[in-house]
């Protein structure tokens, strides 16, 4: 959409969004929870909470711990399962004043394909995010995103079930995220969400026990922003498909870092917990920034700070 003469639209595969601001999966419910506090017509898309093949009660409590500059969570993919979801929830998404992107999680390749096919078949769902990177479910949860082989298998499987855009959400808890990004693109992903939460834990020094019921959790918030910016930077050098940058975005300056690193869109998760007005403020701030810089479109700055990597061998500065 053009706002103040600036083209803010972004394309994820065949899906064109009016604004480059998405609401992160698991952080925004289905949108209705935040509707009294935020203008949903001023966001690009809501990414829904992940749904799995079978219903899940989720992890034991406590599921949240506040930490410096962010928080740990270990919700454990609590959801009603795809059948209940299709029957009771999905029809409500038709009324949202913004695009709705479904999110699929699973425990084997077949799970992903099964849920994706059913979800993507619904008109209310504009695109599907594939959550191969949840750090909070036992064993299998994150392993798909930690290895190019399984990543490719899942993405090929879901690709065969739908022609709707597929966004693959990558994990930062890997050695080489670029390698996994390349595999996801080769397997048919239309876009990549970079990054999911960073594994972490907190310990109660009075009780001598981990604070989270799940023991480990996923760290989000401003604390992980530099990790996320670097991940976007590295992925942008490895793929040609659009990147949705995410990790601790709270201000327009934060959002710009991700765009300049190579993201075409950004996603806000934990920032909504700080202030539900943050997405609208960032959108207005992006338009204002583009105006001040004389840009016709935000696309003009995507990746503009991505100057490659320093080759230490050729570095001619201080050798100390």
């Amino acid at each position, binding site marked *: 959409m053009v706002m103040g003469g600036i083209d803010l639209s972004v394309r994820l595969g065949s899906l064109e969004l009016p604004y480059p601001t998405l609401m992160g999966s*698991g*952080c*925004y*419910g289905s949108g209705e*929870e*935040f509707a*009294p*506090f*935020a*203008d949903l017509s001023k966001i690009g898309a809501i990414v829904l*909470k992940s749904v799995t093949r079978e*219903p899940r*009660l*989720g992890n034991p*409590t*406590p*599921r*949240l*711990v*506040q930490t*410096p*500059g*962010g*928080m740990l*969570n270990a*919700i454990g993919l*609590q959801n*009603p*399962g795809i059948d*209940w979801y299709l029957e*009771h929830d999905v029809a409500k998404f038709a009324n949202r004043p913004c695009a709705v992107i479904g999110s699929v999680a699973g425990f084997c390749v077949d799970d992903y394909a099964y849920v994706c096919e059913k979800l993507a078949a619904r008109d209310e769902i504009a695109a599907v995010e594939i959550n191969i990177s949840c750090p909070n479910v036992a064993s299998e949860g994150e392993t798909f995103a930690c290895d190019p082989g399984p990543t490719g298998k899942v993405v090929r499987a879901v690709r065969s079930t739908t022609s709707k855009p597929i966004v693959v959400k990558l994990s930062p808890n890997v050695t080489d995220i670029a390698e996994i990004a390349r595999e996801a693109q080769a397997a048919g992903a239309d876009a990549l969400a970079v990054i999911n939460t960073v594994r972490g834990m907190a310990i109660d020094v009075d009780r001598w026990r981990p604070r989270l019921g799940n023991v480990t959790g996923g760290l989000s*918030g*401003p604390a992980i922003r530099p990790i996320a910016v670097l991940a976007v930077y590295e992925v942008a050098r490895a793929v040609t498909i659009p990147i949705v940058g995410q990790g601790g975005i*709270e*201000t327009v300056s934060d959002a710009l870092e991700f765009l300049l690193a190579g993201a075409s869109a950004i996603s806000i998760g*934990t920032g*909504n*917990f*700080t*202030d*539900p*007005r943050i997405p*609208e403020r960032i959108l207005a701030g992006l338009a204002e920034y583009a105006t001040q810089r004389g840009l016709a479109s935000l696309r003009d700055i995507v990746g503009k700070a991505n100057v490659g990597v320093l080759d230490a061998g050729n570095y001619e500065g201080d050798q100390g």
Partner: protein
Amino acid sequence: MEAVGTSSLVHETTVLDRREPARDVVILVLNAPRFARVTKPGQFLMVVPPHGGAAATALGVYDVDGDRVCLLFFVCGPRTLELAALRAGDRLDCFGPLGNGFDHDAAGGDVAIVAGGVGIASVLLSARALRGRDARVGLYYGARNAARLVEAQRFADEGCELHLATDDGSAGHRGPVTELLSRDLATRDTIRANAPMSILACGPTPMLRAVARIAAQHDVRAQLSLEETFACGVGGCWGCVVALDANSAQAPPFPGPDRHGSDTVHARICKEGPVFWSHELRW
């Protein structure tokens, strides 16, 4: 001066006054007509951190007076430390009110209000609402020490009989406040058998568990306002759940017992609660 932030129900308020009735216990008086008009006893506000960088803080609405809303909190971490530094004239953004408060219509007969520590922040509006009923209202109030037993007189002014307890015995009964409740309920059983009675409680989880146990022993219905860390505060993240009887009227519609072979569901404390019937909790 209160302004509406964009199109949302997030409102700007102004700090009118700040009191510190005890060390690390702070009461902020806000000019907040939009919240004052609609807040019900037991509801909470999400307070936006003045400098960002952390999730908003859920604070029970302590008092409402005309256009004024009072928030009472303990300083116990960086977020409350930041709020404690606010002074008269400072701006503070909040959203809400949120959650389902206490149901006074369902609280029949004489009422025991049980508050532990900062739980006192969520029960003053109930004490006031129950005043004028043809019933006795007792405040069972426990704190670490006499200094932390803040605002007790406010409840006496609202017509509550005070039953005080401290961990160190510096005021009232020495020990958990639930010992007082238990003793009085036992006495009551002997002198006024079958007298209707209800409990409203807010405080730390161990206290609430004790209240639930005592309520069950004496066949008294108790409404408990649960304490938990929130992230979103509006039901979007499922971070603050508690196990609840699947047949409770407060149970979220999924996943039902037919799907899990169990009679327990996870309910969101911020959305379905924070007040639950003690006999419906499966904790």
